[in-house]
């Protein structure tokens, strides 16, 4: 039986894959800051109801900010606006992080990239309470 151990496919040196972006410390600061702050900003955006715009699918019309559904407009959609708000704010924070010295950005704890989305889930479930309440009444 062979005892040869092959290189771990998941962590084998693959490259520098040619990408200057992947080797850039500034891009690292942007990407990690964007991804760490993204879930937090999204939860805050939903909680505070800060969509950049509201979309009315029945009429195909957009309005800046929050716009409640009114008679004749059909339902409103806020999710697109929440998503754009999140991307804009997180990108802004990522750009600020790019301007910081590397000795500062090196200290960003990378485990927050996967921890924050997990921690966001309870809030997301809570934010949908009106659905669960209606379901409980059935």
């Amino acid at each position: 039986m062979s005892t040869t151990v092959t290189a771990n496919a998941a962590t084998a040196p693959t490259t520098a894959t040619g990408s200057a972006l992947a080797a850039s410390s500034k891009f690292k600061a942007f990407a990690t800051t964007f991804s760490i702050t993204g879930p937090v900003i999204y939860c805050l955006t939903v909680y505070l109801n800060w969509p950049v715009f509201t979309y009315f699918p029945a009429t195909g019309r957009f309005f800046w900010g929050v716009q409640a559904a009114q008679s004749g407009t059909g339902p409103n959609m806020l999710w697109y606006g929440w998503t754009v708000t999140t991307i804009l704010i997180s990108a802004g924070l990522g750009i600020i992080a790019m301007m910081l010295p590397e000795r500062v950005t090196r200290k960003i704890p990378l485990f927050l990239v996967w921890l924050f989305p997990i921690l966001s889930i309870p809030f997301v479930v809570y934010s949908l309470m009106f659905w669960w309440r209606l379901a409980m009444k059935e």
Partner: protein
Amino acid sequence: MTSPISTSAVFWTLWLFVHLILALGLLGALTHQAVAVALPARKAAGGIVSRFRAVSAPTYATAVCVLWVLTFLVGSFIYTSYRINIRIPLEQGHYFKTGGFFDFKEHVATLGLVLLPAYWFFWKNAQNPEYDNARKGVTLVLAVMCWFLFIVGHVLNNTRGFGA
């Protein structure tokens, strides 16, 4: 003669099919990658399970990002029709859990979207052990999200598809 309603249903069903194909590609790539980081193959690949674990995971990173964004965009487009033609009948039929899970899905899709820059960076630096834990964590989170999104979308389509 084809009625406008059935033409519209065909249009949205075709887009839903595109969404499904993109989602299947994404699901496959992310599942391969997640298994490769969670249960890395230590011997030369033999059986189907070992080969499944032994994929060159870093090569999937860009494809996963592109597929997530495309699936997200197509899903966002379909969502406009869902809000009128699916959600309202779901509410009228008192399918509140189904409606709630779809809203849960939209939130998870955005949470996944914002992880992509870091995910891509970690995989493009797969040779750097400094990122091993973060890469493993974010890949597993994205894979679980993707399976959740896929299953909810599938169940929702079974509950009420376009043209139902």
